[in-house]
């Protein structure tokens, strides 16, 4: 009886799966067009899956091994089942292969079940709880029905009752694995995930055989030329179709949720829920069937949307609340952690673009900061002609005078901040000690546009960027050095798209830690022995995750004789300071502050000093109440450790202290 039933079941499930796949494809194709190499992408799926995706999954060894056994077993078992049972190929060898595959899948599913008893907070429940059982049903069912084909049992073993039970089990397994894959069951992640890998919006993220860096973190420019189009993403169908496909690939593992600083701080953001909300919007409906952690403080079931309905309405509730989008610090921890390589930050900024450019609804200080950027080229609204006031005594060489230099020192908006001025002074002391030929743009420099872009104001970003590009095109320099990772990232990764053939805008940009590291390696700097206490290092998101620079700052610290006491979350898992993405400007309230949590991480290491490499991190971490570790920029640590400088400079500084003593404040 099973001989007749099995092929019918198999092909019925496959046919339903194909129908579901077409429906799903049509859901994705509601999005805006985005050209992809269709066949080339599909051909690359195995490599992208087995190499790039596996590297990320493998950070959790338990689930990586479990997934290899289960998924590998399933793919093999499914193929063999189609051949053996579907087409009735009576081959004992293939049947034995099928048996081995189902055993592997069964063992894997045992570990899947074990992980879910009880399920950790970050995992979704609901239909996901039945997945291990479905996996077992498929593997056990397939195993049993294959025994006769392999010649272990006679074809008519058992009775019709056992055959009926087996048929039911196999139907369950097939239903979950084939039918559920394209009709929105938990197995959807396999189908959508594979196609997502094929047609990913950032194919640069995937490695190739040649090796090298494969990173793609710069936001994509918005086309501002066409004035009839609405800017940014208002409704789910405003995403590109492959973005929608990416959302659909989410496996709800919650690794993003576990890493998200805003979620941990109790701000109303959960990257996993956000992606699920996009899926809900794409298909239409409410979030009532979502079974993971909610946005902190926002109960599940109150939000819903449709493909052509607004995501964030002007008034009232729809799919997502605006404050959810504004809670993100764009730290990219979720993207780094996502085993499906979904681009959360792109989606958030796309939606922010609509809120800022079309609604004019940037919360809290957002509007003021953007107005300042438009009117004064800096977020604080300071006089742009006072950019160099902090360095009145430093006699900084100006590009306008020199026209060319080896290094263009990009100062950033930290010039207006008294704390950052100390860092800048230290950096200049270091550069001078190493005899670097550098110059600054001075009053010609403008904000890099980072904050404007993260706040969604693409127009202001492009205006600032284009003017900066024009300014820099007048001068000759071989590289840019900056102590601000945000400027570093924008100059390095986001200006390139905005250049023209007359004004190319691809620069060689160095973060000061990388540059100092080169100076140290070239033995242009000599240090005295480190006498301070223990030191930990905080990786800035825009240096580490965005640009992969984890080692240079640590090398510099090592060169100073410092042994870095690493925090539990460091390197690519470094926790954000809370200062990125305009988060301090939009300032969405939570239960605790992100920098306080980060300082808690520092405290656990017992370090007296935390070395940083970013003005934002410095400001955020120094905002934590005492007692806490001291915050020192790498440039400051290096400058303090410099061996006695050239005698000329020493004399000058002596003179300066003398004059200071000659003039005293009259207090009587």
């Amino acid at each position: 009886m099973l001989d007749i039933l099995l092929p019918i079941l198999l092909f019925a499930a496959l046919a339903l799966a194909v129908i579901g796949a077409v429906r799903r494809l049509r859901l994705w194709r509601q999005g805006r067009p985005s050209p992809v190499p269709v066949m080339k992408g599909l051909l690359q799926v195995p490599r992208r899956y087995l190499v790039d995706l596996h590297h990320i999954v493998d950070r959790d060894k338990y689930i990586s091994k479990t997934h290899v056994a289960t998924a590998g077993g399933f793919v093999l078992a499914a193929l063999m089942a189609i051949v053996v049972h579907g087409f009735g190929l009576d081959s004992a060898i293939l049947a034995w292969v099928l048996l081995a595959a189902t055993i592997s899948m069964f063992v894997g599913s045992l570990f899947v079940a074990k992980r879910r008893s009880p399920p950790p907070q970050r995992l979704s429940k609901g239909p996901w709880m039945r997945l291990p059982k479905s996996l077992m049903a498929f593997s056990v069912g397939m195993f049993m029905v294959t025994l006769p084909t392999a010649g272990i049992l006679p074809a008519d073993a058992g009775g019709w009752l056992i055959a009926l039970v087996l048929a039911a089990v196999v139907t369950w397994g097939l239903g979950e694995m084939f039918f559920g894959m394209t009709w929105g069951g938990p197995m959807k992640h396999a189908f959508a995930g594979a196609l997502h890998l094929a047609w990913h919006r950032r194919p640069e993220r995937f490695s190739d055989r040649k090796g090298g860096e494969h990173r793609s973190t710069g936001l994509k420019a918005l086309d501002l030329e066409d004035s009839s189009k609405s800017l940014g993403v208002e409704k789910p169908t405003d995403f590109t179709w492959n973005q929608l496909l990416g959302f659909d690939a989410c496996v709800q593992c919650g690794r993003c949720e576990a890493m998200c600083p805003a979620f941990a701080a109790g701000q109303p953001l959960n990257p996993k829920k956000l992606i699920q909300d996009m899926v809900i919007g794409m298909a239409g409906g409410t979030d009532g069937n979502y079974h993971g952690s909610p946005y902190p403080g926002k109960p599940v079931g109150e939000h819903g949307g449709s493909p052509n309905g607004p995501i964030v309405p002007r008034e009232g509730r729809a799919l997502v609340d605006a404050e959810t989008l504004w809670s993100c610090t764009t730290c990219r921890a979720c993207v780094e952690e996502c085993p499906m390589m979904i681009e959360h930050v792109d989606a958030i900024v796309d939606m922010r673009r609509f809120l800022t450019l079309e609604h004019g609804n940037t919360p809290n200080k957002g509007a003021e900061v953007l107005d300042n950027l438009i009117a004064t080229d800096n977020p604080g609204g300071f006089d742009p002609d006072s950019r160099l006031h902090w360095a009145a005594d430093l006699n900084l060489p100006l590009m306008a005078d020199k026209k060319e230099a080896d290094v263009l020192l990009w100062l950033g908006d930290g010039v207006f901040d008294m704390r950052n001025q100390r860092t800048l002074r230290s950096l200049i002391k270091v550069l001078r000690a190493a005899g670097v030929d550098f110059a600054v743009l001075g009053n010609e420099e403008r904000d890099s546009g980072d904050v404007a872009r993260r706040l969604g104001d693409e127009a202001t970003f492009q205006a600032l960027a284009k003017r900066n590009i024009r300014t820099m095109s007048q001068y000759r320099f071989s590289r840019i050095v900056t102590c601000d990772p945000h400027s570093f990232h924008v100059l390095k990764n986001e200006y390139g798209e905005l250049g023209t053939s007359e004004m190319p805008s691809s620069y060689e940009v160095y973060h000061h830690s990388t540059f100092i590291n080169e100076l140290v390696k070239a033995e242009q700097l000599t240090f005295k022995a480190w006498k301070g206490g223990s030191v930990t290092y905080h990786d800035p998101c825009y240096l580490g995750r965005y640009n992969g620079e984890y080692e240079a700052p640590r090398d510099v610290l090592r060169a100073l004789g410092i042994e870095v006491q690493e925090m539990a979350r460091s390197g690519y898992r470094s926790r954000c300071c809370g200062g990125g993405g305009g988060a301090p400007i939009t300032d969405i309230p939570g239960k605790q502050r992100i920098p306080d949590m980060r300082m808690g991480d520092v405290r656990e290491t017992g370090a007296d000093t935390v070395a940083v490499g970013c003005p934002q991190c410095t400001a955020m971490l120094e905002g934590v109440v005492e007692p806490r570790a001291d915050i020192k920029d790498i440039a400051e640590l290096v400058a303090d450790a410099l061996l006695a400088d050239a005698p000329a400079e020493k004399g000058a500084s002596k003179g300066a202290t003398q004059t200071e003593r000659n003039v005293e404040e009259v207090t009587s």
Partner: protein
Amino acid sequence: MPPNAEASGAAGLSVAVLVSIGRHPLTARTRRADQDARAVEMALNMKGAAISLVHAGQHDSDHEEAIRGYLGMGIDEVRLLEQGPQSDVVPALTDALRDSSPQMVLTGTRAETGEASGMVPYLLAETLGWPVINGLAAVESVEKGVATVLQALPRGKRRRLRVRLPAIATVDTSAPAARQSAFGPARRGELDVQALASETDESLAQWQIQPARKRPKRLKVIKSSSARDRFKAAAAKSDGGGGQTLSDVTPEQGAEAIFKLLREEGVLR
């Protein structure tokens, strides 16, 4: 929420807002003028009011960008009465207001560019014969052609006034701040350019205009022992010394008092 956000009875009210080109105090870049933008904000918060924006001035790219700042607040169209440089905009505005006959005209107290005398609303009121209210803080209600409004007085005081429409009201920084100007609507909004004959301001042409210089301020030496007194002295706003509040006086007595003050100050000789 400011009371004018719920201004009742504003439905069907036609409001004209006169907008000018602003100028950033530090960088002198053109932008929407702050007070005019507040006037637009106030108009936008009158539920159901039909709003029309009018600008009289030149039509060039720099000015257009500033005008688009108002469009970005969610306005579909600005009427641009094209005028030559250095022309007197009052006649053009008078004609335009007479033709469109709005019930209420809102504008900033003074412009950020040009003469910036703050006289435009008064001159318009004089020629049109309409009342003027300065320092409008909120429009509370409009009923049967009479508006109840709050007027801002110095040091946070408010005065409730009833005014028969049509009227002109000026808005200063005590009005609610203007909403953010969004790039998308600003770009899509339309400029209805109307070339009009312009009257050159003869006296303005003869003036010599130069940037204002910041005058040094005399430091006030506070001689007091306690920190509290020094803090109070530093934080206190100057009272302005003289001046008096007149209430329940006849118009003649009031005019007499104003006349006396102008004479004392040397405005009238």
